[in-house]
């Protein structure tokens, strides 16, 4: 095995935290403690997301999508992160951005985007800036299958090619955009093939196999450092509707049932059990710990105040160079 036991277990814990964090969201919504609308859950997609994130080195940046609730709980200081999701003043961005526009530059998380596809060229520019500054890092820009149909996606991969920016385009293909199945959105079978159009490589992997995803992204990061950006597509299935409380499930229930049989966490558990790294007691313990961490972060968020109008309307947060009538 390429990875240490500690690393293998850490990946498992992150998958579980991601899952449990998002299951907490469902419970808290049902209890009326939080409101629906912007909770785009990635349950079932943990291998793709955690596999991707685990491939990053200490100098690399991730550009998440807003379907990264659980994933970012594994990456960020969780209390501040949850408070931000709840638009509270103690959130890491003072409650202005929530999940849809989340970022944490100091934790090497570039802004997520509410405008699908818009983050792709920004990721290229940021990666190019890293290269110009002779920094070692790369950008891994996440997108869904839906947003890969945006013109900006094509323009970004083309610009990445000619600038040789150190970037990896990670397409988390969960087979559906809102309620529209991918077969209605594109004739393409493998979205990684989009790279052919602009002369950059692409690879498609089983997005429910965390080790396959991680290895593919690691290889792509190495390529990116050598001046060859590329696409990694991870094929997975979204288990939940588009967003909690916003849209009903319209798919054939059989699709969801089949997907649950291919649960990425269960699959990885089997790998770790075969390696004698995990048993049922240990699994229960990890689930329990992650649940405690998740709920504690929500409690922190609930007990935090909303930001003041003064804090939200501070012109210093709109412009850095003041002067003249900007308000």
């Amino acid at each position, binding site marked *: 095995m390429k990875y240490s036991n500690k690393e293998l277990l850490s990946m498992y814990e992150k998958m579980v935290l991601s899952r449990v964090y998002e299951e907490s969201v469902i419970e808290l919504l049902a209890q009326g403690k939080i409101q629906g609308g912007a909770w785009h859950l990635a349950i079932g997609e943990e291998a793709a997301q955690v596999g991707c994130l685990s491939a990053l080195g200490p100098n690399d940046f991730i550009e998440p999508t807003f379907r990264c609730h659980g994933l970012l709980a594994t990456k960020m200081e969780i209390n501040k992160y949850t408070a931000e999701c709840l638009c509270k003043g103690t959130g890491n961005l003072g409650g202005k951005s929530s999940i849809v526009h989340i970022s944490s530059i100091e934790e090497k998380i*570039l802004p997520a985007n509410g*405008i699908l596809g818009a983050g792709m*060229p920004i990721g290229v*520019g940021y990666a*190019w*800036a890293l290269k*110009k500054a002779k920094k070692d890092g790369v950008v891994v820009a996440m997108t869904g299958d839906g947003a890969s149909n945006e013109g900006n996606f094509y323009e970004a991969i083309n610009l990445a090619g000619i600038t040789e920016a150190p970037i990896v385009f990670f397409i988390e293909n969960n087979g559906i955009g809102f309620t529209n199945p991918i077969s209605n959105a594109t004739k393409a079978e493998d979205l990684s093939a989009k790279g052919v159009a602009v002369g950059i490589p692409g690879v498609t992997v089983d997005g429910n196999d965390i080790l396959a995803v991680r290895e593919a992204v690691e290889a792509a990061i190495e390529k990116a450092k050598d001046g060859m950006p590329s696409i990694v597509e991870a094929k997975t299935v979204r288990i939940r509707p588009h967003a909690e409380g916003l849209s009903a499930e319209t798919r054939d229930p059989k699709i969801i049932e089949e997907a649950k049989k291919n649960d990425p966490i269960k699959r990885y558990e089997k790998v770790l059990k075969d390696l004698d790294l995990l048993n049922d007691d240990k699994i229960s313990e990890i689930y329990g710990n992650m649940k405690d961490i998740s709920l504690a972060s929500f409690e922190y968020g609930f007990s935090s105040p909303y930001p003041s109008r003064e804090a939200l309307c501070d012109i210093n947060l*709109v412009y850095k*160079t003041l002067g003249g009538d900007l308000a």
Partner: protein
Amino acid sequence: MREITYMQALQEAHMEEMKRDENVFLMGIELRNMGSGIGQTAGLYEMFGPDRIFDTPISESGYVGTAVGLALGGVRTIVEVQFADFLSYAFDSIVNQAAKIRYLTDGKANVPLVVRAPQGMGFFFGAQHSQCVEGWFMNTPGLKIAIPSNAYDAKGLLKTAIRDDDPVLFLEHKACIFMKGEVPEEEYTVPFGQAKIVRPGTDVTIVAMQKMVWDSLEAAEELQKEGISVEIIDPRTLVPLDKETIFNSVRKTGRVVVANEAPKRGSISGEISAIITENCFKDLKAPIKRVGAANIPIPFGANEAHVLPNKNDIVAAVKAIV
């Protein structure tokens, strides 16, 4: 003092700022072979080379977005869009991305970006190469907008824009770009948010932008012969807008014409009129008059004259309120 064209002034501003700060980076279409769409960066590629100047593919949405990412990553970036009309393709990168990043990152990041684009009449290229687009953008917090009318301001404002730590939309004007004006050899900048009284007067205030400044000067000469004294104010930047200079003039004259080349419906002349009404209502002796283009797409070639405003429209507007 020496006289150079508005375009030469722009070229000098780029050159001086790129010499002054190695972190200034320039990108756009046809910078290497053509020295920009019109010639605003002529000779600079030879001077600074491919590490400082990048020729983009025809890909406005993508390359302006890339420029936003560069600026977010700390590279002080100037990005040219060949005609301001093409900013529609780059609209999201400017309005939803560049302008909002500082706020959405809680002030932890900023975007030192200048988006340059020539706008307006002057080339007779019709509906998709002749528009004035400031009104598309002024409704966006987080963005600054500069609209120079002459060579001196073009150079001084561009230098300020490049040094600014926020995204600046810098709209050149094609009918002004070959005009010559006095530009000192020595270093200077023009600060944002300071309007210029182009011509002092006592009877009517004209707030005029870009080519309309020049048309207003001609109109003022004509009106002077009839005993009407016109004061012309060039805002120079729309965000920030120097309201005080406008108010002081209105308090003196009590009569206002706002002249902007864009179609009158939804034009920023409405915004400026509203600001004046909110603040100087008691000083007004007559309704504010607006001069603008007809609410019609701009027809190609010389036919544009039937749609776009000119000196005669300004004269008529002034006469209607004195």
